[in-house]
């Protein structure tokens, strides 16, 4: 009786382990995976000395801030911060470099495909293929 019971436990344990393995394999093979963002953009940072760093970003974000948040999360070499204001986020620090007009007599200017941007980071729409350039600009 004892032997029979042990045999059943062993068979049961083998079935359980085998099922977990098969289910885990099925999950890995067939589960819906998140796809890379559909829009491919470039975020470029030009620092005080004119050195440029480019980041290729795949994103589904609607606005530039969302894409920059994703980039900051996935790439330690990129960071940004600023002050929230009436027109969304006012970017003050990028990659550790501060450009606050009142303190540094400089600001971070946003260019979209080389043209001066019309929107702030919170309102700038993200369009596939576009390049968004943050340039450190000293006030004349």
């Amino acid at each position, binding site marked *: 009786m004892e032997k029979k019971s042990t045999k*059943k436990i062993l068979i*049961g344990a083998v*079935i359980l382990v085998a099922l977990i393995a098969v289910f885990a394999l099925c999950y890995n093979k067939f589960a*819906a995976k998140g796809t890379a963002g559909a829009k491919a953009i470039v975020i470029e940072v030009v620092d005080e000395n004119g050195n440029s760093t480019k980041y290729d970003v795949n994103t589904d974000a609607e606005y530039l801030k969302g894409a920059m948040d994703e980039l900051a999360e996935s790439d330690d070499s990129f960071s940004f911060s600023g002050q929230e204001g009436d027109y969304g986020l006012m970017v003050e620090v990028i990659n550790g470099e501060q450009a606050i007009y009142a303190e540094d007599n400089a600001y971070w200017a946003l260019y979209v495909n080389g043209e001066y941007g019309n929107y702030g980071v919170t309102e700038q729409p993200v369009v596939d293929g576009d390049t968004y350039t943050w340039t450190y600009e000293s006030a004349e």
Partner: protein
Amino acid sequence: MCDNSSRFSTRDIAMIGLMIAVIEVCKAVLSFLPNVELTTFWLIMFTLYFGRKVMAVVPAFILVEGAIYGMNTWWIMYLYIWPLLVLVTWIFRKEESALFWAIFSGIFGLCFGMLCSITYFFIGFSSGGITAGFNTAFPWWISGIMWDIVHCVGNFIFMLVLYTPIRNVMKRFL
């Protein structure tokens, strides 16, 4: 180990009410943990100790569930999943090892999503045949596998820990 007399006494009816109450209270207490439940544990224990009379518990329990939470697709799944658990438990009713029942509960928890997906197969089947049924059921099952594994682990641990103490209490009072 189980009581197999076919007639229901007043005591049996009261016990059936208590069994459902125990299941529902445990369900409510654990409702904040997704896919962690004691319904499997209790239905197995009740089948082992109340024998065929548990067949009155299952439909009553399913009706109470439907009355509390509303009847939807999940309720259709309950109509065959819990009776199936009771039936298979009945087949292995002579087993007394905590480890055996822990493994049994674990397998049941693991297969829960797959068993539920049968309902979705028929929903898909009704609109587009076997392929549509498969395309409805399979992704639904796959997307929930991680939760089925949680269910499996929860069932396994609950049974392993609770089987012996609850069995001792039931043996003393029943």
